[in-house]
């Protein structure tokens, strides 16, 4: 990874506050959230639905542009403040340096284009690739993600693939430009249990093959235990507890964490 990581953390979030304004009233969604991520780290962000996990992810991607939403605090990526970055500069970052994969791979691909076309598109937007170069790279990526017969799969439409394959393609697309940070918003929730395990396996491998850090957002403590180095427990918009996954599981400090742990089926 780059040398920056020694001086700055890769991603450093300080006092992030997000609130929605509705009928003159400001409703806080995320309050004073702070955390940082090192290179090649898998950080878990856990919490029940409505605790502000996905909103945080969207804010990090700079994808919140609805009127009536205020975001304050600071988000530094490789030492550079990215909150409030001009749209054009943020766009260059998005997809190339910070990429994201979504919960439901069924609806996350545009239905009228082939999988390959959509991965090509991302490659060509961020690199000076010819159509052919892009497709070659796409096929490589798909193969790397364990997609069988990648050349053929690239020519298929999203609805023609199974959920697991779609999610692999999604990851391939997110990784196409070798981002430093990959935000995965509930990447396995919509999948079967066996497929879930395969995808998690793949994500663990990614940090060695692609050198990406992963921010894994989930409500499933089992997923966290299997995958994450460190874990952040979110409770109604605030960080309830933070620590290495091992510590957290061994000695939960916050009653909410304990309750979450207790909810894992044995």
């Amino acid at each position, binding site marked *: 990874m780059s040398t920056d990581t020694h001086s700055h953390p890769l991603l450093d979030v300080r006092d992030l506050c997000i609130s929605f304004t509705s009928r003159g009233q400001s409703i806080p969604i995320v309050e004073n959230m702070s955390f940082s991520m090192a290179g090649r780290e898998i950080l878990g962000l856990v919490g029940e639905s409505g605790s502000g996990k996905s909103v945080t992810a969207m804010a990090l*991607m700079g994808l919140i542009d609805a009127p009536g939403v205020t975001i304050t605090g600071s988000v530094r990526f490789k030492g550079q403040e990215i909150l409030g970055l001009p749209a054009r500069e943020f766009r260059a970052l*998005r*997809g190339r340096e910070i990429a994201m994969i*979504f919960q439901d791979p069924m609806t*996350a691909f*545009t*239905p*009228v284009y082939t999988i390959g076309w959509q991965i090509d598109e991302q490659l060509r937007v961020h690199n000076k690739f010819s159509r052919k170069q892009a497709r070659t790279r796409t096929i490589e990526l798909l193969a790397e993600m364990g997609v069988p017969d990648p050349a053929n799969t690239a020519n298929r*439409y999203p609805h023609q693939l199974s959920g697991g394959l779609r999610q692999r393609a999604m990851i391939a*697309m997110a990784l196409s430009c070798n981002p430093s940070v990959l935000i995965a918003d509930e990447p396995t929730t919509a999948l079967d249990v066996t497929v879930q395990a395969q995808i998690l396996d793949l994500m663990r491998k990614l940090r060695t093959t692609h050198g990406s850090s992963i921010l894994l957002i989930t409500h499933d403590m089992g997923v966290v235990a299997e995958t994450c180095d460190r874990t952040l427990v979110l409770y109604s918009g605030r960080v309830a507890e933070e620590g290495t996954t091992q510590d957290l599981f061994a000695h939960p400090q916050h009653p909410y964490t304990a309750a979450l742990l207790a909810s894992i089926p044995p």
Partner: protein
Amino acid sequence: MILPLLRRMGQTVFVLFGISALVFAVFFATPGADPTARIAGRNAAPQTMEKVRKEYGFDRPLPVQYAIMMKKLFITRDLASYANRGELVVPEIMRAAPVTLSLVTGAAIIWVVLSIGMGVLAAACKGSWIDRLLMMVGLIGISIPVFWLGQVVNLITQNRYHDTWLFSWVPGLGYVPFTQSPLAWFRALVIPWCVLAVMFVGIYSRILRADLVATMGEDFMRTARAKGLSPSRVLLRHGLRTALITFVSLFGMDFAQLVGGGALLTEVVFGLPGVGRLTYQALNSLDLPLIMATVMYSAVFVVLANAVVDAAYLFLDPRVRDVH
């Protein structure tokens, strides 16, 4: 891919039969009136009545009458008008068809281009005054009856202000074939095109805006933005392309409806001798065979066009392709 197409063709044939039966029933099986008198026209002589009755088999059962009618319309094509001294009806329609086609095609190009522009702009500026203004304009366009607008435009361009520099180029009402003079053809049609397009611009821009706004909330639009694409690329390549599926299927139906008689009012107002105006003239002279023939041919055209639209749909939306 082949099977759904075949099934669609089967349906088309069925609907064609149904329509011909329906039109036949409307003209010849309405209760309480003698179809002979209708065909023969006003105050026909008894000999003519007798001839008509023989020719169309009105003394025979309904299915036979239906068969005779279909044969005269589509096979021998010798259906003749009584109100108009035995003029053959089918060739008359064939002569009028290019006029209607010119009118509708031109209008369609205008309304597609304008409504896509307006719809996309309104959706991109959702909630702003531009959005509200465009949608208001669209609503006004929808509410104006085309024959009123046409007459007002005629009043202005042909009459009141014809001699000013602005409208002196406007030719008198009527049609010039393209083959005769492309420029004159264009000048004769450009105003009718715009007038006919007004309502559709309104409808289509509003529909497209609604579709686009709905599409913006979809997950794949979020993915597209997360990929780092520019807003215009997200809106056009991903949003518009998806919303166009509905747009195109609607367009096909409306285009077919217009060619199949929907442009009648525009043709009448602007004196364009198309199929619609032919129907109108037949209405005034109560020329039943001619009306029936235009209705029947129009309906056939509409059905065939709808079949084409459905086939286009198969190409446009990969999801539909695999459903069957």
